[in-house]
């Protein structure tokens, strides 16, 4: 069965995207990446040496196997996000950008107004734009209208590992979306990722849950299996959920007797 994720004019066999922060070494990150089966990996532009973009992080990522998705982590407003995206592109990174506009350094909540502004500009400049957003269904539609390639609502605060706290809002986003929905941030364990995929998310992005695990590569593999299981489970079409047990026909069974 071919079930590819179509995103930004490309297709991906894996629906798991990996973040590269917080790992104890680039080698541990590379091992986790290999074990995850991911084909897309996000890298903070601020961590990359833009004068020599094959520096500490990026030279551990084989760009023939993985698409590098630069992100604008560190940007606090639209202008800064736009500048980081341009810097990344002119340094030779792919013209894809995960827009993160985060003015709040504690809870790391994205700014919806500035995110929309940044996305408008970057879409116009030809980037494939993937915005990281709060699970806000109206914002998701607005971003779709300006031409983003996907929307990336958070499941819970970044790094919190709390799971699908925003489930009800994410369900609305998925139901209304005309672009892929990538659930990003807050997934703590593989079952959270499976649940997101069962809901109909097109992909998930995981970083802390893998990087801060005792065995990052094993956890990356576990997430890969969970994402696949959740996706197949969705496509298989689940049995209906009922609020009561439905055994035989205790009240009308007599009609078939005799």
């Amino acid at each position: 069965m071919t079930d590819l994720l179509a995103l930004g004019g490309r297709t991906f066999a894996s629906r798991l995207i990996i973040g590269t922060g917080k790992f104890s070494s680039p080698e541990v990150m590379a091992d986790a990446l290999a074990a995850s089966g991911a084909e897309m990996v996000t890298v903070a532009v601020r961590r990359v040496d833009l004068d020599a973009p094959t520096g500490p992080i990026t030279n551990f990522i084989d760009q023939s196997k993985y698409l590098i998705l630069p992100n604008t982590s560190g940007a606090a407003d639209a202008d800064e996000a736009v500048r980081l995206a341009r810097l990344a592109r002119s340094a030779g990174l792919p013209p894809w950008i995960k827009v993160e506009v985060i003015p709040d350094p504690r809870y790391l909540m994205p700014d919806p107004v500035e995110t929309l502004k940044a996305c408008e500009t970057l879409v116009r400049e030809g980037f494939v734009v993937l915005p990281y957003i709060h699970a806000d269904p109206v914002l998701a539609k607005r971003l779709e209208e300006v031409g983003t390639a996907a929307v990336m609502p958070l499941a819970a605060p970044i790094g919190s590992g709390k799971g699908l706290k925003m489930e009800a809002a994410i369900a609305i986003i998925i139901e209304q979306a005309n672009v892929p929905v990538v659930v990003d941030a807050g997934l703590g364990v593989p079952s959270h990722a499976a649940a997101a995929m069962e809901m109909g998310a097109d992909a998930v992005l995981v970083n802390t849950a893998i990087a801060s695990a005792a065995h990052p590569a094993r956890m990356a593999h576990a997430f890969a299996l969970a994402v696949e299981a959740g996706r197949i489970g969705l496509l298989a079409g689940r049995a209906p959920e009922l609020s009561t047990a439905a055994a035989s026909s205790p009240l009308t069974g007599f009609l078939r007797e005799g």
Partner: protein
Amino acid sequence: MSVVSFAERFTPVTIRDAVTRGARAGASDVRAAIASGASDAGAVAALLSPAAAGMLEELAQAAHRLTLQRFGKTIALYAPLYLSNDCVCTCTYCGFSMGLDIRRKTLRVDEVVREARALGDHGFRNILLVSSEHPKHVNMGYVAQCVGETKRLAQYVALEIAAADMPEYETYVAAGCDGVVLYQETYDPDVYARHHLGGPKKKFAWRLDALERAAHAGVRHLGAGALLGLADWRFEGLALIEHVRHLQRSAWRSQVNVSFPRINAAAGGFSPENPVSDAQLVQLICALRIALPTAGIVLSTREAAALRDRLVPLGITHMSAGSRTEPGGYSEPGAAGEQFHLEDTRSPAHVVRRLRELGYDPVFKDWENMAPGTDSQAVVVEAAGA
């Protein structure tokens, strides 16, 4: 500034009372404080209490977990670059104190550039410009120029200089300043008065509100701290946490980091009235991490190498390495007097190697210059291609 600034709401007597009550805390109070993240002063006092001193492993495990979740296994590396040791302040503990017979020097801007280049050769992309207080030699125009020139060589530039007013901080932000570090030294006004005998640094409240002014001027990263050894460390710890929590509410756009250097030997031969032991330092680091899970914790080379290595997993997020505390010290060591004596004299390469052995990723670059104009080249390329 916020409606009520920290200096206006800060009441040392309340802090002292909370510390006194904390002395009666038991193990269950400590465990409750760990579990709840010590959301009020009473719970913080429990983390700093004698009872918690007997539960250091429990504190350390919690601090380690919180650090791993928020920061992962990375340590950001930075280097101090001393601009000047010319000083008009008389402070009992400081090697730059006015009147001390040391070789004085204020670097010319080209010498600052030479120092920044020397640091760049070691890999540093995060530079903290440090200066003593001298309104004439270390004036606003000079500092702004030093920030601008350093910013050409390093992506992240912070300042640790005299407390300033908002327009001055705005000037530094425009020049490229990403952070302001300003330790209160001590949060006890009486002790503060006894150690700051002359010069503009005497103004306790002006200093106490400086970080808030910097934040409102657009400074993105704030560094708060206390100099351990002057007053009771439990009082300092609780006051510092209250200060940071105030900043997190009133200056919500700025990241707050904390540090608590212990007083070391310096010219003048000062010895601290309230020395802090290694175990007390560990307790303080753990309490800060539990109470402030999103704050970076900065550890300088004042501490010995062996201890620094062991403090890393407890909550440290930022470390200096290969530091010199005299102006010009990287390109011309010993040409001027140092501020204090350093314990960890390992080279940056040595510290990097050791961090990797400990299972941590040493990070030199974690910032990019996002100021207007930085992408001008990209725009030109785009226009040509269109």
